[in-house]
């Protein structure tokens, strides 16, 4: 499996405050990697740096082999993202938003691709609806459709199912798992839903205080650390990271 993301010794400081402290990891094609950790652990900071909207203090990021710092546009052509805190402009329709972002990502045969995604994400009935009038679940689906537009090598998902009902969340998870399995892309996924993470992620990274504390298979990792479940392990990371660091 080839690497779609390589993060080496990534650091981000704001003055004396260290938000991300020497993080290194990779995501390979066909792989879904969960980036987990309590609020303020550095997950969104890490994702922002990979998206090129936040400059690292040090370290390097390569997306599909392209260095982000040296070739920003070329590297970002291989990626896309969906995040609960980044809804698409509410004053444009679903189709207009997809067309604009399709052009920004240089998608070939854009009209055809938009039709595929409208169908795939069950958005055909909303194509002429302004995104601002959609329910939060529908907006999430539009964001995910946007994230899939360019068939990214690296798909970044920051709590993609946070505002979906369980039935819709299952469908979306299936689509993302399918994307990772059938395309050459990989997925970096953050979520606070440990059930979901255990179901979809091949590997997880536990982040605490800006550092990777644990890494491994979400199914076996809890047992390896004497915990009954991934949720229990998450709580332990959030409450007593130092104890786990010594393990």
């Amino acid at each position, binding site marked *: 499996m080839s690497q779609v993301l390589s993060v080496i010794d990534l650091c981000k400081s*704001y003055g004396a405050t260290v938000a991300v402290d020497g993080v290194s990891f990779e995501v390979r094609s066909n792989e879904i990697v969960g980036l987990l950790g309590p609020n303020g652990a550095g997950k*969104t*900071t890490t994702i*922002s740096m990979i*998206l*090129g*909207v*936040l*400059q690292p203090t040090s370290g390097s990021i390569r997306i599909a082999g392209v260095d982000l710092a040296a070739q*920003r*546009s*070329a590297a*970002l*052509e291989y*990626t896309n*993202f969906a*995040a609960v*805190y*980044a*809804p*698409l*402009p*509410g*004053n*444009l*329709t679903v189709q*207009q938003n997809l*067309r*604009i*972002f399709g*052009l*920004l*990502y*240089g998608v070939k045969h854009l009209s055809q691709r938009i039709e595929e995604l409208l169908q795939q994400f069950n958005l055909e009935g909303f194509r002429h609806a302004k995104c601002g009038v959609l329910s939060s679940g529908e907006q999430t689906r539009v964001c995910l459709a*946007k994230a899939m537009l360019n068939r990214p090598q690296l798909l970044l998902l920051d709590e993609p199912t946070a505002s979906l009902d369980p039935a819709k969340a299952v469908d979306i998870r299936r689509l993302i798992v399918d994307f990772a399995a059938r395309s050459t892309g990989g997925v970096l996924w953050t979520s606070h839903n440990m059930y979901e993470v255990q179901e979809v992620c091949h590997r997880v990274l536990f982040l605490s205080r800006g550092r990777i504390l644990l890494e491994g298979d979400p199914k076996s990792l809890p047992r390896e650390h004497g915990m009954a479940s991934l949720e229990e392990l998450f709580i332990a990371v959030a409450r007593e990271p130092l104890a786990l660091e010594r393990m």
Partner: protein
Amino acid sequence: MALHRIAAVVLRQFYLLRGSPARILPLFAWVAIDMVLWGFISKYLNSVASAGFNFVPMLLGAVLLWDFMVRVMQGVTLAFFEDVWTRNFLNIFATPLSIPEYVSGLVISSIATSSVGLVVMILLATLVFGLSFFIYGAMLVPFLSVLFLLGIALGILGSAIVLRLGPAAEWFIWPIPALLSPFAGVFYPLSTLPHWMRFIARLLPASYVFEGMRAVIARRELSASPLLFGAGLAVLYLLLVSWVFGRVFRHAVRTGLIARYTAETAG
């Protein structure tokens, strides 16, 4: 630069305009009101002033040129504000879109929107108030060009200020044309101004346009060098503010302001 990405920025503006009378109306409504107001003022002054002097090209022509520059500036800033109002920075700046492409898209959007205002102003000024553009002759082209460059430069500067200081700084941007107009000598010769104001006026490309316009109307000999100097200043300012916008963007990426723009400060 990738044309498809510039097209995306322009297309977004087209979609917004197409679906919104609240955006279409201001493209021509305010400039039309200005034309009507200053058209009647000019006609009235013609009726009370000594015969033989025509205020229409002097006042109405000046308002038309000034309003054109303001529309060009607002064309850039309004297109930029659409991203501010919809909190869209994270989405667009996480794409391969580069800053030169983004700014080019804003400028092309402004050319389209300011052209609408210009056409409406020309129609009203000529058809209703009898303004003849023949009086300016071929000089109209350099006059409009210098004001266009200055309008673009001011628009990019305004966008950089809002990007740096946050959404509330929008209110610094709207009064910029009103702040500059006394120095630009839109309605009076620069010799009317006190020395310190004349010094500032000489730094404004627009002042060379309006001095030139008055010289043309008065059929005085127009030296090309002041207007060329004004054009050079406009180009210089355009390059300078483009550099400033790039710096502000890099600052926003370094501090994380792009990712949390509504917080207005990265500190």
